[in-house]
């Protein structure tokens, strides 16, 4: 098992390297360069100076090698658009909020989604099921920013602040209260997706013979769900959660804007517009790393949940 995990990590590093390389060259292929992206046209001499300062006058191959060397030392470079600010600092100060929002959203999404899915499956075709289906369709079809605005309008106020994020020295209860609305907004899509998947997965499992066996032992419904249904129905969910985690961490820049959250999402978009090469690279690397990492974790989780997969891996 340990060997398998180590191997997985090896693959993850290789994947990350491929992404870094591809992004680096693609970025340089985008028409325009940092000097032209602003509204002001820089005098030629200034542009030359800047190019020299950022090393843009060197051939691309050399720049690539130089960049790789810097990354291995953990240096992501200095921002072009905000001189004096390094990408490391931006990520250090901005990433925690994004990650917290992402993890909370996935957590809430999973708990509520799985719960709704299981309840719906057990009350198949009853009014409970129809409510669950309604929530799912609602969650999938309404964009999260519309939902966010609805939440701000209906629940926002002194208790749930309309905008803002956790500030230093805030207790756990307070920080959960402050983050409740953005978390829910970012989670709604997940709730919808997970509940649909879970419902059909649970229905599949309930049709299996071993559920009858469990019943014939005299187990109660709760015991059957907890010991026999949950573990067997969760595998399909694992496979959709991985991209969702990355998606929520990276894709919630709209939510971050709406709720004024000091997250990384904004930089992701701004850096591309500003051709801020170090920032583009830094945000891409971070997001890819999160993505690859969550997929890797899911692969390991698969093996933990299902002994048959574990066996095939160890071979």
């Amino acid at each position: 098992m340990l060997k398998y995990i180590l191997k997985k990590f090896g693959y993850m590093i290789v994947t990350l390297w491929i992404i870094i390389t591809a992004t680096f060259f693609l970025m340089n292929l985008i028409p325009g360069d940092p000097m032209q992206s602003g509204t002001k046209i820089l005098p030629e001499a200034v542009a030359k100076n800047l190019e020299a300062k950022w090393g843009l006058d060197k051939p691309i191959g050399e720049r690539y090698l130089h960049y790789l060397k810097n990354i291995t030392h953990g240096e992501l470079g200095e921002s072009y658009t905000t001189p004096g600010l390094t990408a490391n600092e931006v990520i250090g100060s901005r990433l925690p909020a994004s990650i917290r929002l992402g993890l909370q959203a996935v957590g809430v999404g999973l708990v509520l989604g799985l719960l709704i899915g299981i309840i719906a499956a057990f009350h198949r075709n009853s009014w409970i099921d129809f409510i669950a289906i309604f929530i799912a369709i609602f969650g999938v079809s309404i964009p999260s920013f519309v939902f966010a605005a609805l939440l701000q309008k209906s629940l926002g106020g002194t208790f749930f602040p309309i905008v803002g994020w956790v500030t230093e020295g805030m207790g756990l209860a307070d920080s959960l209260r402050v983050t409740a609305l953005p978390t829910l907004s970012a989670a709604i899509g997940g709730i919808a997706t997970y509940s649909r998947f879970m419902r059909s997965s649970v229905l599949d499992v309930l049709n299996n013979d071993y559920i009858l066996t469990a019943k014939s032992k005299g187990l109660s419904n709760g015991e059957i769900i907890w010991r026999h249904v949950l573990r067997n129905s969760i595998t399909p969910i694992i496979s959709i959660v991985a991209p969702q985690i990355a998606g929520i961490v990276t894709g919630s820049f709209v939510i971050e804007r709406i709720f004024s959250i000091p997250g990384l999402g904004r930089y992701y978009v701004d850096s591309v517009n500003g051709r801020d090469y170090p920032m583009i690279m830094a945000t891409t690397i971070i997001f890819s790393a999160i993505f690859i990492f969550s997929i890797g974790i899911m692969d390991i989780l698969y093996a933990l949940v299902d002994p048959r997969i574990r066996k095939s891996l160890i071979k």
Partner: protein
Amino acid sequence: MSHLLEVNNLKVSFHTYAGEVQAVRGVTFYVNEGETLAIVGESGCGKTVTSKAIMGLVASPQGEVKKDSEIKFKGINILKYTNKQWQDYRGKDAGMIFQDPMTSLNPTMKIGNQIREGIIKHQKVSKKEAQERTIELLKKVNIPNPIERIQQYPHEFSGGMRQRVMIAIALACNPQLMIADEPTTALDVTIQAQIIKLLKEIQRVNHSAIIMITHDLGVVAGMADRVAVMYAGKIVEEGSAEEIFENPQHPYTYALLNAVPNLELENKAELHVIPGTPPDLVAPPKGCGFASRCEYCMEVCNRYEPQYTQISKSHRTMCWLHDEIAKEVYGFDNVRSVIKK
């Protein structure tokens, strides 16, 4: 003597888009302590549904056990049980062995835990005691190295071994009634014999009653004390194993016995089949269910349902040929002699 299990006029229907399928249409039988009753019949005759009804496992809301049905376990009508009472009854009073051991075990749970959970549920014992009891059970069903085996998952077991585990699960709390729903159908022949032997051995030791659901007459001959032959949701003939095999009275029973391949025949000899298909149970026939496939079908068979005729104290059959009038008209002894050939 009162019976361990008494089933009176059991009717089970399934509500489908095509209409109400009357899978079991009024079945009455009993099982005594320590005896084996075999319920035989072809696929779809209602034998599995009957066994599920006894375990309270008829899937609702599609499946419905009709109101006037009665299943008495030690004199108490279990169909009136609450959910909680059903849970106490399942596993403790009655255990069930299912047809397909390949799918009847939870693939993500260790074998030991699957056996143990029934014990923990019904008997107030510590985890350690339950563990010891699990190992004992695995020894009882002849699984070698039980101490290592309880840590393994179903996919590490062969089909025969899994069926032994299923038997261990059913046995976990020494139920007085065991229901085996085609326990050997999914296994190959050499394993079948071992499993039958094991069941007999367990019955001898535990003195439990077994209801054996099967369509394999070889299994019936090897195991059953009494036999009930089911067709189209009804018991058409019931008697001791000897009576059913030596002196069958219903044309369906004849046909069934005839359809067993005879090993002494030449290779070229044709296998006997029963022509036709069972009736559609959405709209069951007015008369005898077997009429359309019966060689000796009379006018009355299509119009009126036959009643039971008692052949001996333990032997009864549901066929018009046994009616006093039919004997005169048809010359019943002639029929018997024709069939015997």
